[in-house]
């Protein structure tokens, strides 16, 4: 069931419930496909839920509305969290979830596609592209004197890509106060602990040195996320905003939390039943 614009933004209790719905929707899609990026999705559930149901100005009736806030899913493999949000906001039909990755020509797949999915502001999938696109969108707002905000979500592993740092420098140069980037700092990438695969910490020092305003918070703390990501619509030139969100990969499902293998894995009907049961009681 989709919410209409009058029911938004959701209050804290509503956001909490929507985060639960989001995790269940994601599992539903992965069950349809038989596998999915559980860990990567569940670490950013609260971030996506806060943006789409607490902060962002979007309208399902006008997916291409020039004044809408933009969202860029840099870590494209966590797209199902965004699919759920867009479905629950009425951009896409609920039935698409059950077709996820099931056949040639279905609308929903591992990575977000502007080509097939209304409400997706840019196709993503290759890591390290998102922040540059976000810089372009934020620059366009300045050039066109529009007050929309642009949000870019990156993985902590994604910041290994050099292009991220090219984009970081440019966002500061152009004083894009209308741009907010979030790093989903779940400390695991495909091959293991991000600190072992390629150490990137300390993130706050690095981003501050690149000229950004930096906040570090618990990425599952809804009030903190609401406060830190509030849109800035005054058009003032100021440093772009970086939210370092400490998260738990696989958050919400006990056997997935902090387990490397659940970055992406297959799921059985028995496991799916367990996921559903846990999500009903733990969150």
């Amino acid at each position: 069931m989709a919410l209409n614009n009058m029911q938004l933004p959701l209050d804290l209790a509503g956001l909490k419930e929507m985060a639960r719905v989001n995790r269940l929707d994601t599992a539903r899609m992965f069950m349809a496909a038989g596998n999915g990026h559980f860990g990567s999705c569940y670490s950013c559930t609260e971030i996506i839920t806060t943006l789409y149901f607490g902060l962002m100005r979007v309208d399902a009736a006008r997916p291409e509305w020039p004044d809408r806030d933009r969202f860029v899913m840099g870590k494209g493999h966590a797209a199902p969290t965004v699919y759920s949000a867009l479905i629950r906001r009425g951009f896409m039909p609920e039935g698409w979830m059950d077709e996820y990755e099931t056949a040639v020509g279905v609308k929903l797949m591992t990575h977000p596609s502007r080509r097939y999915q209304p409400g997706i502001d840019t196709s993503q999938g290759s890591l390290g592209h998102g922040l540059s696109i976000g810089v372009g969108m934020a620059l366009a707002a300045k050039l066109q004197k529009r007050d929309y905000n642009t949000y870019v979500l990156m993985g902590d592993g994604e910041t290994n890509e050099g292009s991220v740092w090219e984009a970081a420098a440019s966002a500061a140069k152009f004083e894009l106060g209308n741009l907010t980037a979030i790093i989903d700092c779940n400390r695991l990438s495909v091959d293991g602990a991000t600190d072992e695969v390629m150490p990137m910490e300390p993130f706050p020092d690095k981003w501050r040195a690149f000229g950004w305003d930096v906040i570090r918070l618990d990425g599952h703390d809804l009030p903190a996320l609401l406060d830190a990501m509030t849109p800035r619509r005054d058009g003032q030139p100021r440093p772009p905003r970086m939210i370092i969100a400490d998260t738990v990969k696989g958050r919400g499902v006990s056997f997935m939390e902090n387990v490397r293998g659940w970055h992406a894995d297959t799921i059985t009907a028995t496991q799916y039943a367990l996921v559903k049961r846990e999500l009903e009681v733990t969150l």
Partner: protein
Amino acid sequence: MKPLDPGLAAEIEALRRGYGEKAIRLQYGESMLALATEFPDFVVLTADLMYATGMDRFGAEFPDRLINLGIAEQNMTGVAAGLALSGTLPVVCGYAAFTTLRAVEQAKVDAAYNEVKVILTGQSAGLSYGVGGPTHQTFEDVAIMRAIPNMVVLVPSDAAEVDACLRAAITWEGRSPIYIRLGRGPEYTHSRAGKAFEIGKAVRLREGSDVAIIANGAMVAEALMAADALNRHGIAAGVLNLSTVKPLDTGAIMAIVKGVSAVVVIEEHSVIGGLGSAVLEALAEVRHAPVRRIGIADWFPPIGPTRELRKALGLSAEGIVANVLDMLGHAESGRAVAE
């Protein structure tokens, strides 16, 4: 293949002296400046190559519309896509080598897959910065960009066509990125200023029933010199300016090769994957005369001043004529017709 008869070579040189020339970089800067006044909404993105690409006057007159991203082409291309996704037309202004190769994945994913019009201009392509060596010589760009779905690939042939091509790209209403391959220094002019450029349409510049010469970029003027020299000796050579490599004007290719005894395709690009390949892909579907591709062989070419280097590699009117005579069975290239 025998070297060209000296008398014939002298004739070609005399034809060459009849051509005017204009630097592509100079034309680019002038055209962009004029277009900026006429079309107030596009912006230019550069990676610290404003001066090097002739855009300094643009930068001085439209400082708010020249976005300098520093030496970071991947970010530049992503930013361009982000601008286009939000309704601002970006013209990326750089060297072909970096615009296409350094940021190729951004061109594919962010621009082409997203179905947004981003104009990617690449100067100093081919051997036009020959002394720069293989890092700056660019002979893979057409092959790479042509392989990306939804990418338009344009290779204008002289200053006037560069001007017309930029205008055509800016006013085009499609939803594809457009790669425009450009030279750098002076190139011979053969086309009339103010003539319209139609994306996707090849232009027949000479009629001839014996031989078909298909060219683009700076090689078009060389093709015209070659055709005119051959015509003087009774070999009727047609010339097709195939300035749009993608989408390919197969109709114009089929028309010019019809009935000829030999086809030469010449381009300042690798013989792998460029214009020659595109033409052969089209011709493979039909019966056709033998085709010879003149281009850069599968190697890193030597370093040298552009025109000398092109000539040394056969990328010249002389190279075309020698190949045509060889293909037509003249034992000693040029002797038979020169006498």
